[in-house]
């Protein structure tokens, strides 16, 4: 879909605004956890979207390997970048939730959070990997192999961690499965849509910025033959000059 960036940004703002309003003014407190449960509407959509972003990056990576077109590499890079940022938010809000629920900032009991940490640690290595390969084309190819491998790894990881949890210990975070009333579902879906729109907007935003930087480099080279002072970050990530 080729919605303009402006439309996307507006839609994001509206959805998130409405979503948060629903969280604080509309949806009733959940019976067990009380007011604390409201973090759920922030934390879970962020987490699901982040993971979806990682898997999507794997798909871009497949296209990159197949066609060799650096545009797909750019999309994979930005998808992973945005999902990692979302991941930071997931871990922080997860820690706040844990502290509010059990008085400790981190708990190993919640398999989903632990799985997410492992996935996050894996994707955090994406940057050192790209920095360590100076040749642009090879960098893109290896990064795509990584993105595909890591994308396939995500479901495996969740399965393994879930299995390792003792069957005695109950799943404490009520996720989208059990016990959500209609009002909760509505609120959750709106927040989810808002986060998805936010992810998409940020990705499009960053892709546009990258493309523009690339075009500036081309212009500069054409005009006076010098390469721009790009800084460290210019060494990694495709310029996507299209």
């Amino acid at each position, binding site marked *: 879909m080729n919605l303009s960036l402006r439309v996307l940004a507006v839609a994001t703002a509206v959805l998130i605004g409405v979503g948060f309003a629903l969280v604080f003014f509309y949806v009733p407190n959940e019976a067990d956890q009380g007011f604390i449960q409201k973090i759920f509407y922030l934390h879970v959509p962020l987490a699901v979207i982040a993971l979806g972003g990682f898997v999507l990056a794997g798909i871009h990576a497949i296209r990159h390997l197949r066609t060799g077109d650096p545009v797909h590499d750019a999309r994979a890079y930005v998808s992973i970048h945005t999902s990692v940022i979302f991941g930071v938010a997931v871990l922080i809000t997860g820690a706040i939730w844990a502290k509010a629920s059990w008085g400790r900032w981190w708990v190993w009991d919640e398999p989903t959070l632990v799985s997410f940490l492992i996935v996050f640690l894996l994707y955090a*290595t994406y940057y050192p*990997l790209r920095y360590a390969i100076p040749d642009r084309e090879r960098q893109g*190819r290896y990064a795509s192999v990584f993105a595909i491998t890591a994308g396939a790894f995500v479901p495996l990881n969740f399965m*393994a961690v879930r299995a390792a949890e003792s069957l005695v210990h109950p799943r404490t975070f009520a996720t989208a499965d059990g016990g959500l009333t209609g009002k909760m579902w509505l609120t959750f879906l709106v927040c989810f849509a808002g986060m998805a729109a936010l992810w998409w907007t940020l990705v499009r935003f960053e892709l546009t910025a990258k493309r523009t930087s690339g075009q500036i480099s081309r212009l500069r080279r054409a005009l006076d033959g010098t390469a721009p002072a790009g800084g460290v970050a210019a060494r990694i990530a495709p310029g996507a000059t299209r």
Partner: protein
Amino acid sequence: MNAPPSTRAVIATLLGKDLRVELRTLQSVPAMVLFSTTIYVIFRFGLDRTELAGPLAAGVLLVTILFAALLAINRLFVAEREQGGFEAIRLAPVDGTALFFAKAAALVVYLVALEVVALPVFWLFFLDSGEGLLPLLPVLLLLDVAFAVTGALISPIATNSTARDLIGPLILLPLLVPPMIAASAAGQRVLAAAGPDYDRYGTWLGILGLYDLIFLLIGWAVFDFLLED
């Protein structure tokens, strides 16, 4: 010579070459064995234990094998990079994936060779009774395959990068968490002090097997792209 050799033949040739080189130069396996024995000693003092059972036993044993595997994985493609092995495979009229399978198979051989020594030493140092060791063998074998397949996939990436020895373990360790989880879960049960416990033994083997299969498929699908110039 007429038709290019079958992939199976290529794998066999590459594997044979690697094993012969290892036998002659003894670069990897003896180091791995020494390394693991020393780590046992460090654990003995680090944990202040002379006997291990259950989760501690599984933890010490599996982490030791993991680190020894990292040693071997780091060296796996060094010869290829330094002596043009990558170019040779690329130019030869054979399927580049054969290199992946051959290297993974070589790693399995090295790890099994390691365990032939490291397991009895572990028994000697730490175990009260050896009855947990037999049910541990299938777990270890599947874990070795997991190390081998993942290592053979990530090692060329690491070897061809500038931060060679850092990138390999950095990427590998998170990837190896699921098989380590499954192997530890099985291992701590069969090494329990009160005797082997087979609770969900099949589940753990299943997770290991699934992981091995998926990474084999991934390696088969993408390895060629790692060989390109």
